[in-house]
């Protein structure tokens, strides 16, 4: 009884903690989501929460002060004196608030509390990101032509072309390797494995220039093959380690019975290991896919910014313009680039929860 109660209490605590963490994670995302529908001018002026009804000072009657009143001296309004700074920030007088309406014309506004929403929402940000911005160019005769920029679709397909092989190749190689490290006996097995684990600590930045030099010599720069190989190589240590952890935990009895039945290593791998490791494959697949999908650095170095091969992350970075003047477009771009990883996650997430191991030994 006591134990049960304790567990129940513990559960509530866990749930509350999880709730708080979820809230903290989701709140900025929600803010970003709302911002992505707001016009650029609004994003600059007010926070996203102003979209919801809220209490705010709203403009009321206007008081005209004498035109030549000195702003650096105390200013008298309705028998009370205020300083310029107070009027700049707004100062409370009874139920209303006094604030400069037009300091130059010496008018003061008497504001009242009121409910307000700024419900102006627009799809412009999404339009600009998806179908491309419009650029105005002037001709010699002074007339204007608009030129449509490219949307995200090309970059989307480029990224997919890179991300899918760059996920499948390392996961496949790593599973072979993990099986070998876990269940094959060959000389130097441990040494090799430790080398691979040690690779985990090498930052990829140190490899950029040497690899780039080799790629230049091989003519792989800016090609899909080059970036597949780069992502595969950078991803392999972690994926191998992860798959090794999983595969080495599989019950030994399984393989022994398979061996007795005369199965070769390849049969065991393809008929037993792969189906059994679907949860692990799915989770490391998601990790690798997300990494490649969100990658900026590796693409920047090895594939570059030519429109025919440009990836989403780079296209989005370029959207803000040479001097960052269109940064509001990042809001909608972030959501669009999020769609694919979300889809992958929800597609594969059932493999996370499926307890494949249960009953596999009983066969």
């Amino acid at each position, binding site marked *: 009884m006591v134990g049960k109660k304790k567990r129940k209490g513990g559960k509530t605590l866990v749930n509350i903690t999880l709730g708080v963490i979820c809230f903290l994670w989701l709140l900025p995302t929600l803010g970003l989501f709302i911002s992505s529908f707001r016009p650029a001018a609004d994003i*600059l002026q007010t926070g996203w929460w102003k979209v919801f009804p809220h209490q705010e000072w709203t403009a009321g009657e206007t008081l005209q002060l004498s035109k030549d009143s000195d*702003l650096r001296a105390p200013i008298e309004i309705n028998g009370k004196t205020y300083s310029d700074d107070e009027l700049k920030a707004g100062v409370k007088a009874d139920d209303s608030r006094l604030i400069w309406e*037009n*300091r*130059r*014309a*010496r008018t003061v506004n008497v504001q009242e509390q009121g409910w307000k929403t700024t419900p102006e929402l627009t799809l412009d940000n999404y339009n600009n990101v998806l179908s491309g*911005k419009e*650029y*105005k*160019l*002037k*001709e*010699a005769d*002074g007339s204007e032509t608009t*030129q449509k*920029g490219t949307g995200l679709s090309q970059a989307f397909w480029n990224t997919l072309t890179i991300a899918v092989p760059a996920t499948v190749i390392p996961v496949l190689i790593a599973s072979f390797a993990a099986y070998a490290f876990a269940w094959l006996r060959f000389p130097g097995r*441990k*040494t090799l494995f*430790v*080398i691979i684990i*040690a690779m985990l600590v*090498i930052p990829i930045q*140190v490899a*950029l*220039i*040497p690899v*780039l*030099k*080799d*790629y*230049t*010599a091989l003519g792989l*720069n800016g090609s899909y093959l080059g970036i597949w190989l780069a992502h595969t190589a950078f991803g392999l240590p972690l994926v191998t380690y992860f798959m090794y952890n999983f595969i080495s935990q599989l019950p030994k009895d399984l393989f022994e019975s398979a061996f007795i039945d005369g199965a070769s290593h390849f049969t065991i791998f393809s008929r037993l290991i792969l189906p059994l490791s679907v949860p692990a494959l799915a989770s490391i697949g998601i990790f690798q896919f997300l990494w490649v999908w969100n990658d900026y650095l590796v693409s*920047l*170095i090895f594939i*570059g*910014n*030519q429109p025919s091969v440009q990836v989403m992350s*780079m296209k989005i*970075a*370029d*959207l*803000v*313009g*040479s*001097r*960052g*003047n*269109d940064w509001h477009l990042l809001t909608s771009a972030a959501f669009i680039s999020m769609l694919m990883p979300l889809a992958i996650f929800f597609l594969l997430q059932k493999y996370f929860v499926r307890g494949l191991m249960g009953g596999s030994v009983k066969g």
Partner: protein
Amino acid sequence: MRKTPGRKLSLAMVLCLSFTMMLSGCGGNNSNNAAPTKSPAATEAPAADNNKDTTNSADSAVPGSPLELAMKGEYKGTKVTMFGPFVDADQVKFESSIKEFEEKTGIDIQYEGSKEFEATINIRVDGGNAPDIADFPQPGLLASIAKTGKVVDLTGVLDQEKLKGNYNQSWLDMSTMDGKDGKIMAGIWNRSNVKSLVWYPKKQFDEAGYTVPQTWDELMALTEQIAKDGDPAWAIGIESGAATGWPATDWVENIMLRTTSPENYDKWVSGELPFTSPEVKNAIEVMSKIWLNEDYVYGGTKSIVTTAFGDAPKPMFDNPPKAWFNLIGNFITSFFPETAKVDVDYDWFYLPPIDEQYGKPVLVAGDIYAMFNDRPEVRAVMEFFTTGESIKSWVQSGGVVAPMNDASLDWYQSESDRRMAQLVQEASTLRFDGSDLMPGKVGAGTFWKGMTDYVSGTATLDQALEQIQSGWNN
């Protein structure tokens, strides 16, 4: 019992391995160091051949410069790769300005723009993957690459006489840099912008009865007048992400040019005149009279470091304007509201001289194009970039000034742009943005940071200046 030695063994193995990996890492570097000497050689060989071809043909038959040959279709079907920082709207404008050239010559200029140009170009050059032409917005960066000897010296590539005719001497001086062995001409100037401009809301400015100040005293008097009338005159913002502080450096450079001689300015840029010297200190003190006066700055001094430079001019377009002046380069117009019209709603005036003996100095910035691979078609494209024609359509779209003399003033679509071009062509002293010329550690490091600290009040002027100067020592 069995476990312990196993563990020890693996630990020893890890240590051994990490050591061998370090060694092999170094080894790898060595073999890679060998590689680049090979690859430039490989690219140089055909380049040298081409060199001979062009010089031979130039000597014997004089069929014309590479550009003329290109116009005849000599290099049809060739490709020239180009790498630079233009993205988005700038890239569209750039591409439209080279379109005609591409169609006429059949040379395909493959332009690649990247927001990370500054960071990437070094990696590309080191990795042997340099573009044929690179476009540097910061000559300091080009200077550091030129020192490695990987940039083609343009002295023998382009006709120097023609260049002298088409550029103000200041521009040519600024393109001469230290090469591996002696001075080289590292690049040519293509796009420039002017940084001595004070933007103001013209319509309301005229309605309020103000007049454009011609001297510094008039400017300060007008600032005081506007403050009395009820507005802070200046809209200042220096926030710019990791580059926060750079607009402040433009102020200091502008005032330096107006309070001391161009020679001193050059010395300051090259590091001979320290930041702690009275000249620099004086310039910042002049600036402080505006910046540190709560009545003169929109939002007060403390808002300067938190306001993005692109957002700073926005209050000028409120009705009535909440601020009146914004000192910044002409590229700022891309941040102005789309509804605002040049010459009507906004305009600029030249930041007035402070000390008359230094004339009317103009601070400029710009893009220098450098050549990494010497092929005839690349030469043709480089020569094309020295002509005003190469930037004509961009000039028409506004926002840039052509540094070439053959760029006609008629190309500028607005009075504002035309006056700007005139200002550059007639400047008594033309100086390049100092912080872009200083080594990155100072010009894009301590200078930005020191100014930000000073303005935000976390450092006194002397502390800030010492901090900036320390960038030279590291």
